[in-house]
């Protein structure tokens, strides 16, 4: 447990004055991540909302070394930086510990950047890759990505008379990353800052490639009020749409709230209730789409059961 008081003594490494939307989940995640880091960090950022809105020339919101090189190569870029660091360390030109972070949105991670990520994980660079997952290409204006939840309406998977939004379930990126047999990866949410900061610290203290997939509410794309961001991120967890878990050296483990649900200490809420609060699912709440809606609940339930199985419950 990290105390907030302790964290509040640290310097804010993401300066205000950045131009992310009011109520943006990504900036909350970045703040929490940077507060959790105990050593200096260098960051590579994939193209995306976070990159665009934090660095508009001649302004930058970053108080840490930061580089953006393209959409699909954040993992490769940070791998290059990290390699240089390993060399300097080997030669004794740098003695202090520096950690290497990459931030990518779901588009830059699940889709166009997965190859660079997969390659970096396989080569075993000592980096932490963080995906802030808001479930669509929000930067270009809410297009479907492979992280878009089933049933969500986006501009390229629009809900029409015939098609009820996106038809496929999202890619399970955390599981795909876990299949790379890296020492540590996990999934978390900014509404559980304790879980998030804890996992960041664990990841940073682990040698080798690590990965965190963090759900990031987007008022504009999810179509909810700006003040509800944190509540949305929380309910994603309580409904088991976005369970909190980690995979450490092949061992799957539920954490925090999700663990408590699995142990029966907390109530699992309905995914449908969570979806009801977001405009992107609005079209599903009609009589004719009832069975489709229920199928989503079923799939989430089944995934949850499978996850519990993997975690030994």
């Amino acid at each position, binding site marked *: 447990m990290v105390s907030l008081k302790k964290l509040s003594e640290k310097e804010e490494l993401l300066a205000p004055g950045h*131009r*992310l*939307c*009011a109520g943006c989940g990504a900036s909350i995640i970045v703040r929490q991540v940077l507060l959790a880091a105990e050593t200096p960090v260098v960051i590579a950022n994939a193209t995306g909302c976070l990159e665009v*809105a934090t660095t*508009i020339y001649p302004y930058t919101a970053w108080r840490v070394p930061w580089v953006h090189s393209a959409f699909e190569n954040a993992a490769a870029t940070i791998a290059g930086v990290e390699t240089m660091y390993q060399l300097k360390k080997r030669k004794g030109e740098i003695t202090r510990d520096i950690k290497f972070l990459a931030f990518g949105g779901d588009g830059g991670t699940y889709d166009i950047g997965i190859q660079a990520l997969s390659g970096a994980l396989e080569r075993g660079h000592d980096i932490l890759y963080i995906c802030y997952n808001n479930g669509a290409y929000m930067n270009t204006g809410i297009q479907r990505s492979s992280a878009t939840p089933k049933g969500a309406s986006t501009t390229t998977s629009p809900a029409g008379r015939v098609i009820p939004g996106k038809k496929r379930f999202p890619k399970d990126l955390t599981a795909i990353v876990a299949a790379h047999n890296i020492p540590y990866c996990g999934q978390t949410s900014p509404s559980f800052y304790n879980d998030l900061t804890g996992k960041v610290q664990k990841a940073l203290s682990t040698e080798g490639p690590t990965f965190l997939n963090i759900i990031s509410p987007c*008022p*504009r794309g999810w179509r909810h009020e*700006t003040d509800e961001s944190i509540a949305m991120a929380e309910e994603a967890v309580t409904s088991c749409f976005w369970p909190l878990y980690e995979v450490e050296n092949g061992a799957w483990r539920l954490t925090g709230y999700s663990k408590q649900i699995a142990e029966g200490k907390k109530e699992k809420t309905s995914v449908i209730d969570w979806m009801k609060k977001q405009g992107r699912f609005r079209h599903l709440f009609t009589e004719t789409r009832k069975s489709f809606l229920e199928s989503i609940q079923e799939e989430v339930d089944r995934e949850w059961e499978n996850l519990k199985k993997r975690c030994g419950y």
Partner: protein
Amino acid sequence: MIEIRFHGRGGQGAVIASEILADAAFRDGKYVQAFPMFGVERRGAPVTAFTRIDNKPIRIKFFIYNPDYVVVLDPTLVGQVDVAAGCGMSSSYKEQEEGKAMILINTSMDPKDVGLKGMFSVATVDATSIAVKYKLGSRQAPIVNTAILGAFAKATGEISLDLLLKAIGEGVPAKQEENAQAAKEAYEMVVL
């Protein structure tokens, strides 16, 4: 040619307003052009949009620097952005008619209290209360674009209310009826 510049905030519908106005003028048999000054600013940040209307095809393709009309969707912008910039001035391709230029502001204040001076007149309309009344947008961020267009029709006389209402009917994604009502009400309420 008449040129209109819209000032608003991300989320208020300034860009849609520029399109609806163009569409309405197009229905009047005019040639039109509408475009935003596209930035990366997010919800709440100041944005600008433009409309050109002419009797012959419009070929020029750049921003509007010397507008005939300026429409300000958010009163708080007046202090932050130079909304009056170039308004009423002639340019290389257009002579300015005297006394034509006008700035229309969404505010409950009287035009003379706004404090803008130049080669233009000022008109005001309380579009926010109208939008709130018809539940357009949220209370937190009311969408005032249709209301202010109603006021624009009356204040400038450049476009008929009927055509405007038709354009609104097709141009807004939801609450067509309420938007039309808002435009009508603003048409009546504008203060010159």
